[in-house]
């Protein structure tokens, strides 16, 4: 008994040494897979641009996001007749510079995506780990609760949650995180249950690893690949859903330059001022598309087994 413990302990140590050596190689391998997918690389650069814009919005924006120019209401873009070079993408109905608002809007979208992904992954991983390790009645209860959440269309659930919590950007993010959570719970639980049948877990258990160590150090790192892919895709879902809530008037409140809320303001000018409508939506589409492209590439690179031809 004692001998086998020592033996498995040794095996584990040498495994650790191997993974430690493998780290830089893994990153390079990941990049070489990722690079094969042209779309993913384009998506990555666009996303990087979006992050830089979000970070530097206050330096590159020509005007403030809520600054009003009363003598320049609904100016068309600079290249159209009646446009002004002072407002490259025109102004909205109360004379705010569209370009500046769009640049600041990137900040909100990035923030929304980040917060939602962090909230939903951390909660989902924790609950999924508990369900996967506990099995039995606790697992059943958790999974039934997740079924209930999944039975309600996510946008509707988010709307109702916001109706309870009150309309604001923070509440919208919490609501979206709750609607995305079940996906992480299911993913984590099923990979945990799969990993638990493997020998290395048994050996760690025999070596005397505690429950928390088994959960977070032994098993979790091996379940991360699908979760990371889901995380990338949730980032874009979060941006889309938050924009939809903003558009319906229960997300970010005016005068916040959030892209969805900007679109809501623009609805009455649909037939008069195309630029007020077109640009915020285009910004949402490009960002979401870039992230989805990147997510596809991540999936291919992290899980070559799933690689679609």
């Amino acid at each position, binding site marked *: 008994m004692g001998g086998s413990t020592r033996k498995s302990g040794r095996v584990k140590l040498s495994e650790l040494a191997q993974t430690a050596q493998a780290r830089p190689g893994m990153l390079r391998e990941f990049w070489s897979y990722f690079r094969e997918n042209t*779309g993913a690389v384009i998506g990555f650069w666009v996303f990087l641009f979006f992050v830089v814009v979000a970070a530097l919005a206050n330096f590159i924006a020509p005007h403030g996001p809520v600054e009003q120019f009363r003598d320049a209401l609904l100016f068309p873009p600079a290249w159209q007749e009646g446009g002004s070079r002072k407002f490259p993408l025109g102004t909205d109905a109360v004379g705010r510079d569209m370009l500046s608002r769009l640049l600041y809007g990137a900040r909100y979208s990035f923030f929304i995506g980040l917060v939602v992904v962090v909230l939903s992954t951390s909660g989902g991983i924790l609950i999924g780990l508990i369900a996967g390790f506990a099995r039995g009645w606790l697992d059943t209860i958790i999974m039934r609760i997740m079924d209930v959440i999944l039975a*309600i269309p996510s946008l509707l659930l988010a709307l109702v949650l916001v109706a309870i919590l009150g309309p604001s950007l923070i509440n919208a993010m919490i609501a979206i995180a709750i609607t995305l959570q079940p996906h992480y719970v299911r993913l984590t639980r099923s990979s945990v249950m799969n990993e638990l049948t493997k020998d290395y877990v048994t050996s760690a258990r025999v070596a005397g690893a505690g429950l928390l160590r088994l959960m977070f150090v032994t098993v979790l790192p091996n379940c991360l690949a699908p979760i990371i892919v889901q995380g990338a895709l949730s980032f874009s879902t979060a941006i889309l859903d938050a924009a939809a809530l903003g558009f319906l008037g229960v997300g970010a409140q005016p005068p916040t330059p959030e892209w969805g809320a900007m679109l809501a303001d623009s609805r009455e000018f*649909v037939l008069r001022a195309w630029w007020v*409508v077109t640009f915020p939506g285009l910004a949402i*589409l490009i960002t*979401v598309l870039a992230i989805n492209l990147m997510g596809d590439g991540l999936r291919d690179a992290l899980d070559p087994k799933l690689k*679609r031809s």
Partner: protein
Amino acid sequence: MFGFALSRLLTFIPTFIGVTIISFAFIRVLPGDPIIVMAGERGITPERYQELLVQFGFDKPILQQYWNYLLGVLQGDLGVSFVTKKPVWDEFFTLFPATLELSTCAMIFALALGLPAGVIAAIYRGKFFDRALMTTALIGFSMPIFWWALLLIILFSGWLQWTPVSGRISVMFYFDDVTGFMLIDSLISGQKGAFQSAVYHLILPTIVLGTIPLAVIARQTRSAMLEVLSEDYVRTARAKGLSPFRINGLHALRNALIPVVTVIGLMVGTLLAGAILTETIFSWPGIGKWMIDSITRRDYPVVQGGLMMIAVIVMIVNLTVDLMYGWINPKIRAG
């Protein structure tokens, strides 16, 4: 097969109970007293307050309240709207045909374009058509549909003046609801131009609501087709000298459709969520617009009842798809 169906039905019940608990809890976790909200800005006398408290059963213990609520739900009693004073159940079924009509058209649109596109993309895998189609599908999948709706309105209603901006039919026409489906009712009414008007009103909402399902179905059909095309029996069919049409259309597509059926089932939730946005933009008098209006009007019994009905519809569709899946794919039943 019977055991499989039974086990699926058994997981349906706890989920249904969970949904009723959520919708029951909804009105009770709201900030503020529901009775004061209902009274509105006029306020309420203490006697009337007490009266309403008893009338709505808020004075009873919480478990008994839930039990009464559950019994009511099972008998089709979802409470009464604060605003219209009509039963929520009746309102739901008056408006539901509009959403069903729109969703059905969107699904037909998505299938009619998505299935052939996915099949052709798989056959010409890696070629220009495949790449162009998959790029388009990814764009469709990433589309903020409320913006897409506004763009289509600018183009088709603004510049080209082809389609109307809102509603289900031109105000010139009036006839009684028979089925609640405007396409059918307008035909029955026999009024000249009514059907045409209904169709024109349907076009843009159908495209908007069908866009994401279209993208998902095209992608799913393509990958299912690719998987099937590499199977041995397809190679055998080729070796036998069957025509490509017979191979692709008959042998491969039939088996490729199995995973696609599941995706279609999963799309119902997406459709109902999309209906909220689409109906709001096009002033389409269906369930989605009703929910949004009720949330902004704080008509909580409607939100509560609508939430439950929508969840139940999604659950019933998922159950049906699960059962169908077991029926067309015998491998599942055993597991």
